[in-house]
């Protein structure tokens, strides 16, 4: 029987853009998802054996992707 553990969610700014971050553990693996705060589309994700790696890699991917997005 598996379930999500240590469910965590927060909204923070990344390069001035609000993003929603969720991290949880399933079956010993940590999953981090980063969504733009509005609309809520996934902009980065990472799964790793420890929480910090999942979070940091996802944040790096998100920063790279957000940097490419056009703001006028």
């Amino acid at each position, binding site marked *: 029987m598996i379930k999500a553990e240590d469910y965590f969610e927060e909204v923070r700014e990344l390069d001035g853009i609000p993003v929603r971050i969720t991290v949880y553990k399933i079956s010993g693996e940590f999953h981090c998802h980063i969504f*733009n705060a*509005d609309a809520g589309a996934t902009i980065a994700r990472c799964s790793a054996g420890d929480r910090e790696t999942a979070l940091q890699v996802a944040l790096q991917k998100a920063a790279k992707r957000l940097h490419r*997005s056009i*703001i006028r």
Partner: protein
Amino acid sequence: MNYARPEMLVSTEWVDQHQFDPHVVIVEVDVDTQAYEEGHIPGSLAWNWQKELCDTVRRDVIGKAELEKLLGDSGISNDTTIVLYGDNNNWFAAWALWQLKMYGHQDVRFMNGGRKKWLAEGRVLTKEVRKPEPATYKAADRDESIRSYLNEVQQAMRSNDYVMVDVRSNDEYTGKILSPAGLAETCQRGGHIPGAINIPWAQACNEDGTFKSREELETLYQSKGIAPDKNVIAYCRIGERSSHTWFVLKYLLGYDTVTNYDGSWTEWGNLVGAPVEKELAPNAVKQMA
């Protein structure tokens, strides 16, 4: 729950009790199409909105024959109770529900709170993918009365019988950005359809992913002029966020005439010569008409 159609929502507890009910098929539809693989509700299936819930060649909703195959392959027959759930406040589950209603499926509901609530409550998950016994599904002809096309929106823009609700973010509505952060730019201009009122779609939900109360939703929409005595057209960028608002207005608040303009901003914002507003003031065109 005192919603207009409370039976359209089931709780996570209800799903827990019915996950192996042979009359119920639970389907996960996520924004993040890989989320299902991390772990999902035991017995649930997954539909991929990018591949299975649209016609990418025509830029259209799924065709009737394709829908019949999808549902049949999912073990769904016409009298099955379909429970949809997904990440991010059931966003893309709403896209699925809107299409199922277009094709006349009677009993389709949301798990209130979606994937987020199920995970946060620490309910049981599995990584096993169920192989359903195929069924026969006969879809109705598409009901286009819950959908708006460009010509209707152009007429609605100058009619006092209609109100339009733009459910994108404020920055998209004002033209500050052309698409949400991190997504590809898909239109030539920023702004909104003249007269449209901005109420971002996720304002209909609580932090735990469940829908706000009927009273809160009435205040949210009616205080801004989205009234039940009007013909309401909801739109966003590509029609998914607005299918969520369509659900709220139609089933939780009981509005008689509400449609989803799925052409949305990626159609309007690319039209040659179409009027566009960028400022916040609504109804400028209607006041002139």
